[in-house]
């Protein structure tokens, strides 16, 4: 099984790579951080003895992606699975950020994800089942003030994935969308969770469990995975409560948390 993982050098990408390598899958890893890819390749090969190929790539840059695809085609690599992990966020008020920084969120989370998804579906292994995972977020379930661009970009992925799934159903392709709550992927994430006190711990999903279930569910043909009972309840509430109310509550809460966070 050949698996492509984008954003592989980040916390979630590394966990996904570990999970796939432990299953004996061969990996093609990409990320903008070349050093991170090199370290991860070493770690995976030492631990699991699988074949790991890495290539640094800026997915928001067409030329950079074309270069990577050339290498893939030259070696005739064909894929059985694509894990779209690459994504980014800048928290805080929309008007509090520089213009191009905000645009970059959509360029990576959406435009680049479409680019790589299109390219890799074209390079699926012929005659075999193909699996795609989109990493969306619990944030895709609500409008989220102070995470407005990010939440909307993740909503884009959720809706897009549902449609794509329908289009590709007859071609032996499954598409799963992962909508996790907070996960501890970076040291910075810990401070965010700490600032939320008890609720921070309660809505945090264990990374190692999430990645294992994600791969299991994607392979068994599921559509959506929202890890954690509390998060499933929250996502259900997001569907029945008017979105203006949700926005109000979330705005309140995040204001308070970011206040706590900066005070501590």
């Amino acid at each position, binding site marked *: 099984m050949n698996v492509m993982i984008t954003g592989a*050098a980040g*916390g979630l990408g*590394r*966990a996904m*790579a*570990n*999970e796939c390598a*432990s299953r004996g899958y061969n990996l093609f890893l990409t990320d903008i951080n070349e*050093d*991170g890819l090199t*370290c*991860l390749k*070493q*770690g*995976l090969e*030492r*631990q699991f003895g699988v074949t790991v190929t890495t290539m640094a790539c800026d997915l928001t840059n067409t030329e950079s992606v074309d270069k990577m695809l050339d290498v893939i085609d030259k070696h005739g690599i064909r894929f059985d699975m694509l894990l779209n992990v690459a994504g980014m966020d800048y928290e805080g008020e929309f008007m509090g950020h520089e213009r191009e920084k905000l645009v970059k969120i959509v360029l990576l989370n959406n435009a680049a994800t479409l680019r790589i998804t299109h390219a890799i579906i074209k390079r699926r292994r012929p005659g075999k089942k193909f699996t795609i995972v989109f990493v969306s977020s619990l944030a895709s379930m609500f409008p989220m003030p102070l995470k407005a661009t990010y939440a909307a970009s993740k909503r884009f992925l959720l809706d897009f994935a549902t449609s794509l799934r329908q289009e590709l159903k007859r071609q032996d392709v499954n598409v799963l969308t992962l909508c996790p709550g907070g996960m*501890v*992927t970076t*040291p910075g994430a*810990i401070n965010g*969770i*700490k600032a939320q*006190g*008890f609720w*921070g*711990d309660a809505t*945090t999903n*264990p*990374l*190692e469990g999430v990645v*294992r279930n994600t791969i299991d569910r994607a392979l068994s043909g599921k559509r959506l995975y929202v890890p954690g009972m509390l998060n499933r309840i929250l996502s259900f509430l997001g569907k029945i409560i008017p979105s203006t109310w949700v926005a109000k509550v979330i705005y309140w809460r995040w204001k308070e948390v970011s206040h706590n966070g900066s005070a501590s």
Partner: protein
Amino acid sequence: MKTVVITGASSGIGLETARLLARLGYNVLGIGRSEANCNKAKELILSENTNAKVEYFLADLMQQREVNRVSEKINAYLNERCNGELHALINNAGCVRSWYMTTYEGYEQQFALNHLAGFLLTYKLLPALKKAQGRVIMTGSDSHKGIKVHWNDVMLRHRYNPLTAYKQSKLCNLLFAKGLNDRFALDGIRAYVVDPGLVNTDIGNKDTGFLVNLIWKIRKKHGVSPDVPAKTYAYLCEVKDVPDGLYFYLCKEKNYSNEVTKENADRLFELSERLCDIQYGKVGMT
């Protein structure tokens, strides 16, 4: 003058041990993660004795490339100013993680820092330790008891629990010390593990979640001051007749887990060599 390298030397047990050994006339080379804390620690030690020999090096030791980088600097320092001799290495840096988190290599962070970092650093400094017939001292804990190494899932990806990961990493400290003694006692190198007891440090409050934070805040109040365990490290550095024991508490030998067997020590040694891509057998053979 004897030289000692101490990891995690900018706070807690490492800092107190650095202070004590500096007072005893050691040339102290500390490693820490935060520049501000390292500067503060150095100032503190110099304020107690302006003639103290103390130097701090910055490194985030859970990342292997940082261990490689800082060990090159330390080896250069040792060769330049200490005749290439290192009398003691104290692998003290440790952490607690509330959640499964990985290093750049994708290794679980408690295993990576509490065990692998010391394993790799000791390897890098082994020629200098051999030259001085030095000692390697690990910061262990009585929590190493009542657990086995999860050989099939040493990074605990299947059932991560902060305490399990911590206990296992502390058992690894004992297994590593035994592995070192089995291999290098004839070269004059001896390895020990110190049980510091319950100590009032911030280990459970650094980068942990609400629950671990809360538990540790309550628990550490019952702990002794870090200058208590520092004496045991100093004792193991200073004592002339090399003690046979492996595990020390308040300068005395203590019983350790039945899991500390040659078989397990060899198995961990082999696994760690693979995870660090090194071979101890080849040290000095160039």
